[in-house]
């Protein structure tokens, strides 16, 4: 696959909703709906964003479009940080970044005809004027599989699937590069879901679009995504190419999610595990690894040290201590608790014995939530030879682990080769 240029890059994006209470609206805490996520979307690519309900997918999608004002982070569109733009600049940039919503019944203004719903943006941004607008709207309707004569209708005359198509036509009206599809098909019947997904894929080819495709289960995104990010409690647990993620899920959470979808392919079949307990509250996330309360493989450092994002094989990022050379456990029992054994298990260094000491040392210095996914380029320039790169944002930590990482990189390298 040729390397497409990065269209949109999200760096350490955060969105915390303040919780206010009392007479004077004092802030008593915050819901960390999105807590430092990083990923990039290349031109003409679809990135799937998956996670349980409430994990912050919608918040992430809306924050990166500035429909919600993010708390922190950067969103680079073609290299420009859109979070720093002024209102006027932002308005004109919005033509390139669009969104399709989950609920087809609240996404269209009930008081407007289809013509004005789709055509309003065309007139507003002066893409066309007069009778041309109507022609463009008719063309768009036809393109999304609706009759052009529908333009005089009101939204309530349509079925859910048809409304979703209108929503797609509206998003396409300004000829954007990037569309956030927030559970765009979740509210539709299964047969209609497939049609809409196929439509989105056709449009992607035709208009050279990139998608951030949000969904709450992995089976829907599998078909459409090039890469998939799995989200848990406001953070990205795993990010990998679609096939890689399905064939070789590393994070225990991803494995659990995958085991929940019926698999015809026996190679991918795993013992079905049901996650115990509920998703913890994002108001008060668990210490250490956010998944430790439900993780079948949870081991010593998980409860105290927040995991870093590591990249055991190139392009496959995972945020879990199991794959962090610094913490990776030697104990086969821990690995056995995983629903699926990773295909390229991380080779663990022989002197694992002194790891606990290091762990304690670093747990004191463990940055609270600041270690996000560093950008790929940064990691590559820092350590061009390494295939397994350890990335971090915490400055103190980089010293501790740099020699360790280089020592291990050779082994990881050979492991990857033998696997291939």
């Amino acid at each position, binding site marked *: 696959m040729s390397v497409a240029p990065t269209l949109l890059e999200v760096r350490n994006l955060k969105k915390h909703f303040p919780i206010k209470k009392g007479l004077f609206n004092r802030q008593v805490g915050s819901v960390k709906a999105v807590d430092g996520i990083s990923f990039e979307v290349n031109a003409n690519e679809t990135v799937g964003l998956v996670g349980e309900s409430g994990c912050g997918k919608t918040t992430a999608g809306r924050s990166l479009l500035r429909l919600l004002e993010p708390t922190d982070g950067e969103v680079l569109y073609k290299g420009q940080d859109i979070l720093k733009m002024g209102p006027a600049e932002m*308005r004109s940039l919005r033509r390139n970044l669009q969104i399709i919503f989950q609920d087809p019944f609240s*996404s269209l*203004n009930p008081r407007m005809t289809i013509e004005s719903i789709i055509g309003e943006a065309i007139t507003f941004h002066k893409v066309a004027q007069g009778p041309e607008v109507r022609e463009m709207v008719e063309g768009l309707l036809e393109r999304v599989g609706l009759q052009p004569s529908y333009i005089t209708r009101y939204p309530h005359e349509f079925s859910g*699937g048809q409304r979703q198509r209108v929503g797609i036509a509206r*998003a396409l009206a*300004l000829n954007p590069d990037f569309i956030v599809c927030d559970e765009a098909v979740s509210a539709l019947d299964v047969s209609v879901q497939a049609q809409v997904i196929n439509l989105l894929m056709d449009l992607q080819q035709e208009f050279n679009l990139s998608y951030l495709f949000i969904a709450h289960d992995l089976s829907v995104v599998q078909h459409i995504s090039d890469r998939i990010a799995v989200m848990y409690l406001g953070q990205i647990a795993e990010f990998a190419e679609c096939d890689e993620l399905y064939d070789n899920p590393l994070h225990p959470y991803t494995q659990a999610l995958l085991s929940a979808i019926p698999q015809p392919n026996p190679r991918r079949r795993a013992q079905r595990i049901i996650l115990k307990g509920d998703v913890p509250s994002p108001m008060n996330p668990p210490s250490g690894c956010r998944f430790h309360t439900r993780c079948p493989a949870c081991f010593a450092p998980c409860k105290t040290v927040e995991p870093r994002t590591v990249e055991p094989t190139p392009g496959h990022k995972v945020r879990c201590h199991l794959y962090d050379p610094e913490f990776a456990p030697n104990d086969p029992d821990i690995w056995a608790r995983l629903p699926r054994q990773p295909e390229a298990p991380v080779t663990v260094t022989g002197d694992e014995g002194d790891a606990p000491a290091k762990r304690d040392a670093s747990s004191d210095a463990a940055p609270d939530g600041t270690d996000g996914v560093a950008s790929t380029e940064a990691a590559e320039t820092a350590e061009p030879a390494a295939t397994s790169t350890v990335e971090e944002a915490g400055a103190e930590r980089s010293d501790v682990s740099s020699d360790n990482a280089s020592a291990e990189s050779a082994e990881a390298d050979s492991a990857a080769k033998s696997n291939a």
Partner: protein
Amino acid sequence: MTDSQTSSSPPRPEYKTYGQIVWGQFKKYRLSYYSVYGVLALFVIAMVAPVLAMNVPFYMHIPEGVGPYTQLQGTTSFPWFAALFDQNFFDSGVDIFFNFLLFYVPVSLVGWTLMMRFKKDLTDTARSKARLRFIGIASLVGIVLFSVIYLMAFSQPYVDYASLKELEGARLIFPLIEYSYRDVDLMAVSQGPSLEHFLGTDRQGRDVFTRLIYGTRISLTIGVVAVSIYTAIGLVLGSLAGFFGGRVDNIILRMIEIMMCFPVLFLILTLAGFIEEPSIFHIMLIIGLTGWTGIARLVRGEFLRLRNQDFVQAAIALGFTRARIIFRHVLPNAVQPVFVSATFGVAGAILIEATLSFLGVGPANAPSWGQILTSGRNTQQMTLILSSGFAIFVTISLLNLIGEGLRDATDPKLRK
């Protein structure tokens, strides 16, 4: 393909707008639907009041050399028409306005019918659009015309037409009831019902039936204008609070809370007490300035709800300006509960006016129903109490029925 209809039947040509759907729903609530006609009837009564009752003749012929008014001798005239716009005769703008409507509404209706004669082939949607445009233009022209007429301040010297009736050879054709609502007949004070005075007279000898008819004007005007004032205030403040949130919202919420600390009726009573001789405009203003909190909270809530709706988010994502989002996307979807609330509000305002008049701080000279009620109570006349009480009761019931029908018709959960 289950949902894209590329090959199905040819499209139906007409689709209902949201307003048509609500109207269709509304029609199913029979009682509410008929109440609309009831209120229309009240409105017509208010308009045609001078046709029913006025002490000026439609037609008058006075022979040569007869009677006290030399300028009228030997003339044939139609004094009723001139008197309608005579500010000596009707000293309240409300009366002049309704008299103006008495001519303007029929003229507009005839104009509309003629227009539709020429454009028979219009579709339903096109017709309803044309109707809206016609109503808009007609109202605008009407307001301008009325302002011109009112500002001209036409007035005539007073003529006692009733006295001319007895003259030798004089011919005068009067309306059904030959009294105006201000006519004082000192010879017939506090009378019971008779052929001369259908509902008797009050303490000052004024014809109660006439006052009741003209009272319709007062009640409807007070209801509509007061509610318009507070709806406008509530819409603006509620929109600001709901859309911008934060500090703006906080300030407006505090204002609402302060207003709500005072019981509205006592606040109104206090304010009305400051005015020496309140006219109905004072009363409208007082009700208008005190009643906005409910609407403001309603609109604020609607804005908060709509702001997070996906179609508003989509409008932001499309890069529209704030003003466009407020006026094109949020407001049109927020006004529907306001409409319902305003309908109930009109009933409420009429009741408040009646209460104020009953307590003696209402409009001083206007023939308001509340005042008839008080004078009936003072003189122990059952006819006065019952007739004015009935008028208030009917009007308020009709309006409340409409409000309830509207509320249910706009509630998608109650769709029949």
